[in-house]
């Protein structure tokens, strides 16, 4: 099996989908000859033609709206927003249309589209290129919100998202686009949506995260293991709809939970998980649920970026805190 980076896995999944189904069309800014600013679509226009890998004018409302229109007619558009910082004018189309079309028309029309966007900090990018607003999308009924954490996850989850009959916002943690290589079989196998993935089993504490922060979260699990602390690590992967069962099962075993995300703390997606833990798992909790998250500040420009992003130390400290409680 070839070893791929996360961005290469995205590219392979897109190529597989284009080859498998004529209804799949890729569109976005610079996705054609240039192959995307992160090279997610590199080589695809050459291989599949300019009708199937389409450079759009620079207009995000248009990109999302065109995808909704195409999907309403039975195509499977995969639209790229160049950076999450520029997704906001596409939100109207996602919130008012994509996520509601099936419901509004009682199933007459549907919206099998994917909106891909790189997100998150840590690569010293310019202003507006580093935020994490996944919780905003997770609030929208009718939508799926999927975030891969590794090359294999990216490949399988992206193909599943393209095959899914409903709209998916697929957010790619760009900090780990090229961080690690992993063996990924390019055989079209999808990974299920609507489920969390347990990346590491453990019995003392449950660490829940998604996207790039899983990298630090797994390092933290490794470090505390040296002190005899056994941490279970859960990759949420699909934030919406959320598979709370996997998290509750784990917490019923460990009794302790730390949620880790890069996004600002208040009303971040960790709040939803913590709320559900208190609603459905209170009796198994041996300590308060702890969140390790970004500050409620504007994402700083890159010189201060590292002070904003949660690090391994904060995670290990939180683990110790919940273990020492009571």
């Amino acid at each position: 099996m070839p070893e791929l980076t996360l961005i290469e896995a995205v590219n392979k999944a897109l190529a597989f989908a284009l080859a498998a189904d004529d209804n799949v069309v890729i569109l976005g800014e610079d996705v054609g000859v240039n192959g995307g600013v992160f090279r997610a679509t590199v080589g695809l226009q050459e291989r599949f033609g300019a009708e199937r890998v389409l450079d759009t004018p620079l207009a995000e409302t248009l990109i999302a709206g065109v995808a909704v229109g195409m999907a309403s007619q039975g195509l499977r558009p995969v639209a790229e927003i160049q950076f999450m910082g520029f997704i906001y004018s596409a939100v109207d189309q996602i919130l008012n249309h994509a996520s509601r079309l099936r419901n509004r028309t009682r199933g007459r029309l549907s919206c099998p589209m994917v909106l891909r966007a790189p997100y998150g900090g840590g690569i010293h990018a310019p202003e507006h290129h580093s935020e994490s607003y996944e919780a905003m999308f997770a609030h929208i009924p009718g939508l799926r919100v999927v975030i891969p954490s590794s090359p294999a996850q990216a490949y399988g989850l992206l193909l599943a998202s393209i095959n899914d009959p409903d709209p998916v916002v697929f957010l790619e943690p760009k900090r780990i686009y090229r961080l690690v290589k992993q063996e990924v079989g390019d055989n079209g196998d999808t990974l299920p949506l609507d489920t969390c993935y347990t990346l590491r089993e453990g019995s003392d504490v449950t660490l829940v995260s998604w996207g790039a922060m899983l990298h630090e979260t797994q390092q933290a699990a490794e470090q505390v293991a040296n002190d005899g602390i056994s941490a279970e690590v859960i990759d949420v992967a699909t934030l919406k709809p959320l598979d709370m069962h996997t998290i509750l099962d784990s917490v019923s075993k460990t009794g302790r939970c730390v949620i880790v995300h890069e996004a600002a703390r208040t009303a971040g997606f960790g709040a939803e998980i913590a709320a559900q833990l208190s609603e459905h798992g209170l009796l198994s909790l041996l300590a308060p649920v702890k969140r390790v998250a970004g500050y409620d500040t504007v994402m700083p420009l890159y010189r201060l970026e590292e002070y904003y992003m949660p690090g391994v130390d904060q995670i290990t400290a939180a683990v110790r805190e919940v273990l020492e409680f009571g």
Partner: protein
Amino acid sequence: MPAPKRNKEDKRKTVASFDIRYTRYIDKDGQVVGVLPDVAKDPDALISLYRAMVLNRVFDQKAIALQRTGNLGTYASSLGQEAVFVAVGAVMKQQDVLVPYYREYGAQLLRGVTMTELLLYWGGDERGMDYAGPREDLPICVPIASQIPQAAGVALAMKYRREPRVAVTMFGDGATSKGDFYESANAAGAWNLPLVFVVNNNQWAISVSVAEQTHCKTLAQKAIAAGFPGEQVDGNDIIAVFDRFSAAMEKARNGGGPTLIEAITYRLSDHTTADDASRYRGDEDLSANWENEPLKRLRQYLIGMECWDQRREEQLRKSCELEVEQAIHAYLDTPPAAPESMFEYLYANLPAALTSQREDLSRRLKDRCQS
């Protein structure tokens, strides 16, 4: 020092120029003012257009009465704009796709949307968007201009599949101030899409007049900026709308790309039943515009052709009223949807995360039955 040599190309010159055409065939008294197109010479075709306009108006009147008596939610009327809506619906072919906004019932009815469906929609029932007729048409769109990029997507899908079909999107004068409109017009030009934009310039966006909306002399010229033709028609003259919209459709169907048609109308009603237009516009303006209204104009033209009279007018009114009454009965007799249906169409398959919420609703319903 010798003067630098001047090259002819150097001096200032016009590198592009444009004009906006305006079409009217029948004036407000039903008199012919131009060389008539074929449709104007076909009494049967004109009578069926007239019937559709009357039906649209009767539907409006009765829908407003339903709203006033508490049997319908907020409703947006077509009053005064029927010629545009009916012409669009009449010219489009079945395989074309309409991407509407929210007041062009005349077009939707001719496409096979039923009056019962329209009433269900404004009566608060999603089933009113499950059109039994035009399955691929988009439903009514309330967020202004947001349907326009979708129409570009529909047109792109048609082009991608090499189908001889055309997407049509309609919107108001206010919508032409939105980025959604500009972005879509630009893309339609760049991609040479089979897409016709129809602007219903009814002079008002709720209380904001066109003069306040834009400093542009026409809305049609906004298409020029996007690289394709825009033109004006007298939207109270159905023959003009029919003729120019037909030409745009044919051009789009034959690979000639998009056109924007700005139909000049006047919103003779309040914006919706929730609005009171007397707060922002005077009676003089309104009564002056009643002189231009499109039904009277076609009726007078038909009378001039000697194919219309009082007796036929009365018969037509009666048959339209009957048709609307029947739809109203069907609407009022439709039992409300099962409350659980709010979960049914959210996703293709309800995710496990939502089953407990659906069960909660079912439990509430059971409790309510028992108490």
